[in-house]
């Protein structure tokens, strides 16, 4: 069969060797490195007396446990400080480029990579972080790995992989005003479940996807892992190529024109066969809010909290009961009556300039609700922060009583000082609503930046479509 999917093309292009059982040695074009999943990999290389295969293929940045305030002082948490310093030392020792905490390019690894043109169409990209799927938005094969594979990719520039199956998710038509990339991907996860994509590479297609900017496409691919798929992909088009023109690490001169010609081929062929196809109608997608402790526990803003007794599967019913109890919610409670304590706008899902613009547009001229104790805005990188400040977005947030912070992962996973207290409820633009994710006993509701902003103003969830 000559017709290939985008995933087939990327896979075939990177196979170094295939074993009899189908396991293949895959070449890795780019590895992104951060402080949390790399120290043991470097230590193990050092103990074995091994060198990286090619230092140029790696790029490092600290993001997970950096503070978002008082950057001039040293990191107060000594254990976090040691981890960040260990990354600095390892990069210096092994000759790997790192954007350190004082560099304007520092930021969340999945914001920094595309922003620098360090992750490009057609590449294989890995990082010791499950949200590496983000980079698939540029027509690349990008997936998260564990620390053993960080070490393996450092030492050999290769990983042993078994090819995934192909899943096509087509979102047809157009979304209405106030409905964003985040709502599209949450609706997809609601439809197929958190294990719906397990064993697959998901290609997102359809006009609602191609209508998105690169930032929006990154939001969708970012959460492919929340649907169980290690990799999410979107075909290259003019939007992709325009985005990568003139990025610092993008190809230059004659190489740019060669790359552009090659990248134009990065789409699934007409007639390519997918193992599974799921179609959604974009017009039916409303702003989404998660109510439980798994991203698949999601409903539209005008819905109510589901009732476990309506679920026939015993294991699922038990999960729903656990979730309601942890979240402090009742079945049949209207979503728009749920009051929140905190707002978090940030994370590798939603901290790019477009996300901040969307949130600021909702907030402009309004004030944070008095019942909301803290509303954090954490830009994805120093460059996103700089751009937002140039546009005056920081002033909009600050005037409304929102806090404007330094870049990093922050309260998405609460490894730094930004966290929920026990029982606190948060409208969050991040990607995981697991128990304890944003702080011990914290309760997370995943929403889009516009929805988080609106909830911060109203003090409870509101349908942002009524505001636009």
């Amino acid at each position: 069969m000559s017709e290939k999917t985008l995933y087939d093309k990327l896979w075939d292009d990177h196979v170094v060797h295939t074993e009899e059982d189908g396991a293949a040695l895959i070449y890795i074009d780019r590895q992104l490195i951060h402080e949390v999943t790399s120290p043991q990999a470097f230590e193990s290389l050092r103990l074995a007396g091994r060198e990286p295969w090619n230092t140029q293929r790696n790029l490092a940045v600290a993001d997970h446990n950096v503070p978002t305030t008082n950057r001039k002082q040293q990191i107060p948490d000594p254990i976090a400080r040691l981890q960040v310093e260990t990354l600095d030392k390892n990069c210096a020792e092994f000759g790997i480029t790192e954007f350190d905490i004082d560099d304007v390019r520092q930021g969340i690894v999945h914001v920094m990579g595309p922003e620098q043109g360090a992750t490009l169409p057609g590449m294989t990209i890995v990082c010791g972080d499950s949200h590496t799927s983000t980079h698939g938005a540029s027509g690349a094969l990008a997936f998260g790995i564990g620390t053993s594979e960080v070490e393996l990719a450092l030492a050999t520039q290769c990983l042993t992989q078994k090819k995934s199956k192909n899943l096509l998710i087509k979102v047809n038509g157009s979304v209405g005003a106030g409905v964003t990339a985040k709502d599209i991907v949450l609706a997809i996860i609601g439809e197929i479940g958190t294990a719906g994509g397990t064993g697959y590479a998901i290609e997102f297609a359809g006009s609602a996807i191609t209508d998105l900017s690169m930032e929006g496409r990154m939001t969708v691919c970012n959460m492919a892992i929340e649907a169980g798929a290690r990799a999410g992909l979107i075909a290259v088009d003019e939007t992709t190529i325009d985005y990568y023109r003139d990025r610092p690490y993008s190809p230059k001169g004659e190489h740019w024109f060669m790359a552009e010609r090659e990248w134009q081929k990065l789409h699934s062929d007409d007639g390519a066969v997918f193992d599974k196809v799921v179609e959604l109608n974009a017009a039916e997608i409303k702003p989404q809010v998660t109510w439980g402790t798994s991203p698949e526990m999601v409903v539209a803003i005008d819905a109510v909290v589901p009732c476990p007794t309506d679920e026939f599967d015993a294991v699922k019913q038990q999960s729903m009961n656990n979730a309601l109890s942890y979240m402090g919610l009742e079945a049949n409670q209207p979503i728009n009556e749920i009051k929140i304590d905190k707002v978090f706008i940030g994370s590798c899902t939603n901290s790019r300039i477009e996300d901040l613009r969307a949130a600021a547009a909702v907030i402009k001229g309004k004030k944070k609700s008095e019942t909301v104790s803290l509303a954090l805005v954490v830009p994805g990188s120093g460059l996103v922060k700089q751009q937002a400040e140039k546009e005056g977005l920081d002033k909009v947030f600050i005037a409304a009583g929102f806090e404007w912070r330094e870049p990093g992962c922050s309260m998405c996973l609460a490894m730094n000082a930004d966290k929920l207290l026990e029982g606190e409820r948060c409208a969050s633009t991040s990607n995981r609503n697991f128990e304890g994710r944003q702080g011990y006993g914290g309760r997370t509701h995943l929403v889009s930046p516009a929805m988080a902003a609106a909830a911060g103003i109203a003090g409870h969830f509101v349908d942002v479509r009524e505001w636009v």
Partner: protein
Amino acid sequence: MQAFKKVTAKVMPLDRANVDTDAIIPKQFLKSIRRAGFGPYLFDEWRYEDVGEPEMDCSQRPLKKDFVLNNPDYQGAEILLTRENFGCGSSREHAPWALEDYGFRAVIAPSFADIFFNNCFKNGILPIILEAEVVDSLFKELAAGYQLTIDLEAQTIITPKGETIQFDVDETRKYRLYNGLDDIALTLLQADKIKAYEVERAKRAPWLFT
């Protein structure tokens, strides 16, 4: 890495679906730059009444008595029996490190998240996928002291009644786990192929080789 050949051990039931890696090992413990010592913090939020912090001495911490890890019947278990989509979420290898450090050698579930599944094989843990009905029947059979024998070479699980359950495992993964082999050394045996690939690829995508 510890080789996995044949294990006969007690089974611990964790009757929950979608157990995520944040639950297996909460984020505060990820600040460690070491690979060992995560066992005492395995399932920290479900296991202890208080909030765990890195380097904490866990011997005096108040336990959540209802949690299965604290049930005296299952102490010394090396096989974890659980529900679908185990290990979803973050790619943190600290999750299999914590399971391994606690003493688990195998996890049985109807399905696993891909990254976690892969990470297990790098750490001497055998993740076994069985049909949901078979897992369900094991949950029903399970009682204090219940043991299973897992034989990787034969790809079988033997129950106390003498019943044999077959399981699948990829040949490459099986070979490496059975022999406890180092991935890097094995991959470097292919160094010539990797270099040849680079030469050929540089012609097609020279911008990646500047």
